[in-house]
């Protein structure tokens, strides 16, 4: 609506229509209402504007009704109630691994007695073993200590007169070691010691 065109335009119709729809009344407080009441031409155009909107609504409804048929809505309702029922029964947690029958815990006295007897047997065995070993071997010699004593550094005056040791002397040096090592060998093992080669036998020279 303007100075050159006294009639209403689409924007005016939209304004009037939205105002009427918003309040849900046949008339609104919009300024275009007064002209619309008087002008037959604008009334006609307004009617076609309203029919265009009504057609739009009818189209939209037809389209939805095609998608959501009565059967579809019935199925939907069933699904809704299935979901509501499942809300009241929360998911159960199943124990895993699940045994076919419960594992029996044996509380009989037999098992306990077996364990006690095994423990006593073990302790007795260790004690007797220690006692027998002590009796057969007596106090053990300390070969490491003896070697350490022999290997101590001689005084400076003594080292000055040291002569180079010949191979025969090496033999003589090893000999007492072997003989002394045989002293510590128990009687029962001396036969085995005799038949097995010693370090001296393996010498390629």
């Amino acid at each position: 609506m303007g100075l050159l065109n006294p009639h209403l335009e689409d924007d005016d119709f939209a304004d009037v229509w939205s105002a009427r729809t918003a309040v849900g009344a046949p008339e609104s407080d919009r300024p275009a209402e007064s002209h619309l009441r008087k002008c037959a031409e604008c009334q006609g155009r307004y009617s076609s504007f309203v029919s265009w909107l009504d057609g739009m609504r009818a189209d939209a409804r037809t389209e939805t009704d095609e998608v959501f048929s009565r059967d579809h809505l019935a199925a939907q309702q069933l699904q809704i109630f299935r979901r509501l029922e499942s809300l009241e029964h929360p998911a159960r947690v199943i124990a895993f691994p699940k045994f076919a029958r419960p594992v029996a815990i044996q509380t009989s006295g037999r098992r306990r007695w077996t364990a006690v007897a095994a423990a006593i047997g073990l302790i007795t065995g260790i004690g007797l073993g220690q006692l027998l070993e002590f009796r057969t071997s007596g106090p053990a010699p300390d070969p490491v200590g003896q070697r350490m004593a022999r290997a101590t550094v001689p005084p400076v005056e003594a080292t000055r007169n040291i002569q180079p040791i010949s191979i025969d002397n090496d033999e003589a040096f090893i000999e007492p070691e072997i003989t002394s090592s045989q002293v510590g060998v128990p009687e029962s093992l001396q036969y085995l010691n005799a038949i097995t080669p010693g370090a001296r036998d393996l010498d390629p020279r």
Partner: protein
Amino acid sequence: MTGAQPAGLAPREADSAAASAVKAMQAEGRHAEARERYAELVARHQRRAARIAFHYLRDGAESDEAVQDAFVKAYSHLSTFREELPFEVWFTRILINGCLDRIKARTRRERWMVSMPESAPGERDFAERTAAHGPSPEDLVLARERRQKLAKALSRLPDRQRSVFMLSHYEGCTSREVSAITGLNESTVRVHLFRAIRKLRGMLTEAQRGAS
């Protein structure tokens, strides 16, 4: 409004009575009875809910899920429902929020996926169409084309304008109801409705001119 309602009660009052009863039954642990009474509310609002969801989502299966979700959510949160607000308004708000969330999720998904050409929603196969005794195939094609144009124009509206237009025009809600559903002022609702119509009129007239 669809669905059964107790005789002598207006739809709103019947809704409030049913919602209060369901709430009380839930509190007392009478769940089977609560569900039975809730069925009344579902039957009354289901079709309307499906329509609203479909206008937002434009996909039958997704709208179906959105409606189911809304009813399940409304049932499980009924303890927070205040009787002074109509059940319809409270429920529609839940439904629309769900639809908007789905649209957001879909937009995110579509960023990473290539869309496949789809048949138009509600499209029937050839045999079904030719066997029907309704409108001619030509009429059906024209109507479908018109709906597609309308849907396209609606989808190009801003979210608020589209919500206001659909609730006011398609569902016949007053500005007060739309205001309660959308959380906008009544005067803002009127402005959005006016702008939505003006834009739709412009887009559809342009499309018509382009076609002819």
